[in-house]
């Protein structure tokens, strides 16, 4: 019964999304106030229907309704409750529902928070969101229905991939999807602006908070995914340039560019066309990334059920969304008025440089991800592009970003000179050089440079705030008064920039990581990765749906108590899969990381790592997201454009 209700609610949501797509846009075009006023209601209705549908899916998972094909294939009665809930979106069908639900939430958020938007603009934005929803709900109903029944129902389910049974991964997809899908809102604003033929400062002001919110979620999502790969896959790495990872990095790069170019639109009414294009590109990359993975084209460890027939539908859908929006862009963008002019060396200039570099990085990553496919298709030549290509191309492009992101914020708008700006942050440069030199005594040149760069970003972020409050140049009281008057967004930006510095420091530290594979007998002591390890014993343990082999090891550190660690290998009973559970001890400045491998003649193969600075990689991601969140709390972003406030006309239905 419940699955049928969910199926019906899904169909209802699909019908409502079509209404949400057509009525408000038609109304805005014909200036029909009644249809314009219907937009928020339709968006909320679709959200409600889809919410019910998603709830029914979760319910079917929780009560182990194995007559639902999706539950039978991905769940098992022995699975812990948390993973029964998170498992509802851990598979292809369920993840499409999650995706559509977040899209519907975006529509609901625009309906709820967008009261001060001009009615026609809001109607168009909600309409565009509805059109995207319609496509994906149709996709779900026609090709990936999560409520398909299975009869006779099996006694138990096939269980979820054990790698996915992990709290980190439970929250990774919703976070990542919220980030991806959140970019639908700037996209909808861009399309609405193209339909209206107008982009102005207030448009920039409306777009920015939505972009910022999605960017924060995407940053968290990527960091969470990378952290999961680090501790769950047990390879000891944090980024593998896997196509799916790249697919999440691309919208992050263009989204970061969008975040910065929207500032220029808001403050100076320049870069309008470019910003609209970036908004379209970011959402297009989000869509292509998540959906091309499912077509089986991209070769990746993140394999969803691959099905070329499904791929054709996806491609058609992407063609309509991306092709349609770019066609509209080609037709309407030339009509958008050009904006303010500025000198190459200025705050705008620095932001343009940021955009150019970030988009170049994105282009390089696309090239590296797609090249093997295209070379196979056109040249019939199989090859793979790996980490060396990405490291060699991304790092040289990232270095100028790091250099400029500290100088840019201290430059004035319109026209600036480089030298005075540099002189204002001389002490940040000094700190960077000192940190670099100290690092050089302990590390090779490249990591030392990276440590210097990280210090430059963190100190530069502080320098930005110090410069804004004229610390030490005005009396302390005046500086304090300026500090209190500073918009929260200024702190947000500084914190986010410092967060990137923290991540860079973490990555630089990771490049110094030491690892060793050793064969150890119980009771033996060995030296590996610069530490002394003792394997005390190997024991067996039983979990809810797995059996576990645990190594009880100690790290012996002079002058400190021994550190006990318990890496394990889990054999899952229903799916004949084993996973490695790495044991990680972090000191904040380094991770001690141990993985238990196979056993041979009474001895255990162990991989032992010492990863300096590793936690900083994800800490930096968190700091960036916190910075973004602070900016979001800025009063300026909550107040709409003061000049264009409209009173909605009373409409009687």
């Amino acid at each position, binding site marked *: 019964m419940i699955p049928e209700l969910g199926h019906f609610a899904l169909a209802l949501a699909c019908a409502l999304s079509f209404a949400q797509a057509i009525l408000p846009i038609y109304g805005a075009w014909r200036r029909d106030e009644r249809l314009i006023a219907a937009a928020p209601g339709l968006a909320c209705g679709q959200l409600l229907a889809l919410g019910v549908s998603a709830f029914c899916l979760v319910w079917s998972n929780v009560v182990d309704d194995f007559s639902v094909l999706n539950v039978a294939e991905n769940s098992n009665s022995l699975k812990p409750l948390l993973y029964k809930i998170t498992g509802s979106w851990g598979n292809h069908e369920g993840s499409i529902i999650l995706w559509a639900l977040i899209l519907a939430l975006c529509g609901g958020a625009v309906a709820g928070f967008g009261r001060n938007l001009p009615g026609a603009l809001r109607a168009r934005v909600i309409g565009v969101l509805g059109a995207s929803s319609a496509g994906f709900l149709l996709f779900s109903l026609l090709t990936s229905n999560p409520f398909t029944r299975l009869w006779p129902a099996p006694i138990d389910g096939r269980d979820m991939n054990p790698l996915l049974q992990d709290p980190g991964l439970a929250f990774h997809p919703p976070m990542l999807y919220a980030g991806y899908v959140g970019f639908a809102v700037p996209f909808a604003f861009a399309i609405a602006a193209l339909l209206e033929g107008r982009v102005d400062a207030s448009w920039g002001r409306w777009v920015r908070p939505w972009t910022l919110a999605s960017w924060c979620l995407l940053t968290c999502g990527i960091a969470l995914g990378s952290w999961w790969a680090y501790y769950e896959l047990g390879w000891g790495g944090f980024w593998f340039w896997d196509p799916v990872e790249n697919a999440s990095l691309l919208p992050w790069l263009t989204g970061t560019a969008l975040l910065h170019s929207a500032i220029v639109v808001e403050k100076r009414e320049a870069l309008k*066309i470019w910003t609209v*294009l970036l908004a*379209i*590109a970011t959402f*297009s990359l989000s869509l292509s990334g998540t959906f*091309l993975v499912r*077509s*089986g*084209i*991209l*070769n990746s460890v993140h394999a969803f059920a691959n099905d*070329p*027939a499904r*791929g*054709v539908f996806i*491609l058609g859908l*992407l*063609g309509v969304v*991306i*092709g349609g929006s*770019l*066609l509209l*862009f*080609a037709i309407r*963008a*030339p009509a958008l008025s050009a904006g303010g002019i500025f000198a190459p060396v200025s705050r705008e200039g620095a932001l343009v440089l940021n955009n150019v570099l970030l988009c170049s990085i994105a282009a390089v990553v696309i090239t590296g991800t797609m090249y*093997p*496919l*295209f070379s*196979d*298709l056109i040249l019939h030549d*199989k090859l793979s592009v790996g980490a060396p290509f990405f490291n060699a191309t991304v790092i040289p492009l990232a270095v100028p970003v790091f250099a400029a992101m500290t100088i840019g914020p201290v430059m004035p708008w319109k026209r600036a000179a480089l030298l005075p700006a540099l002189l204002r942050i001389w002490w940040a440069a000094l700190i960077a050089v000192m940190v670099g030199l100290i690092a050089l005594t302990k590390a090779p040149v490249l990591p030392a440079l990276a440590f210097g760069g990280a210090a430059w970003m963190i100190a530069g972020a502080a320098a930005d705030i110090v410069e804004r409050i004229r610390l030490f140049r005005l009396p302390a009281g005046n500086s304090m008064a300026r500090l209190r008057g500073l918009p929260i967004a200024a702190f947000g930006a500084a914190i986010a920039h410092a967060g990137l510095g923290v991540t860079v420091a973490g990555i630089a530290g990771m490049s110094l990581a030491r690892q060793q594979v050793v064969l150890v007998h119980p009771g033996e002591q060995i030296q590996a990765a610069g530490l002394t390890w003792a394997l005390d014993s190997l024991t067996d343990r039983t979990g809810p749906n797995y059996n576990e082999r645990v190594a009880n090891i100690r790290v012996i550190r002079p002058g400190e108590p021994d550190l006990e660690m318990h890496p394990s290998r889990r054999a899952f009973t229903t799916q004949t899969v084993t996973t490695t559970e790495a044991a990680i001890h972090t000191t904040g400045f380094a991770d001690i990381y141990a993985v238990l491998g*196979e056993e041979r003649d009474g001895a255990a193969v162990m991989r032992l790592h010492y990863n300096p600075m590793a936690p900083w990689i994800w800490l930096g991601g968190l700091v960036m997201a916190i910075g973004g969140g602070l900016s979001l709390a800025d009063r300026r972003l909550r107040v709409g454009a003061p000049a264009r406030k409209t009173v909605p006309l009373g409409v009687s239905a």
Partner: protein
Amino acid sequence: MNRRQVLLTAPLGVAALGGAAFWTMLRGMQRGTFDPRGVPSPITGQPVPHFDLPAQAPGQGFTSAELAQGKPVLLNFFASWCVPCVQEHPALLALAKSGMPIWAIAYKDPEDKAAQFIQRHGDPYQRIGRDTPGRVAIDFGLSGVPESFLVDGGGVVRWHWPGPLDASVIQDRLQPAWRALG
């Protein structure tokens, strides 16, 4: 169209090209002419290289000529030191039970270790040759172990899989290739 309009149409052009390419790939995948996951072997479509391998206990060695005696054979490279080979082994046992002749080459493996491996995990093989120096593997262009080659009755390599044979590979790739040989 002026320059500005051309410039603003460029993104559409890029997207259209990308879309067309993906369309071609998807069509190719449906027809089986394009496989983004496959790794080609230079030897596919070629006769097997010439070799004469000594026996690996408990089996009997074989030569390249014996591979070309009219019946198709699945040729499997394995080694006792290779973990994915252990994972693959149950699938090979099942295939052998279903009647597929499987011949094996023990790659860079001491004779006693390879024999122990088969004793411990079961013997799906009709013939087993020993390639301790790994020379034959070089002639086959082996990328690693396990790796399997489908050799037709004329001794020509028809299909190849670099990696362990699992349920989906067997169902979606090996079986169709096997049926195609008749």
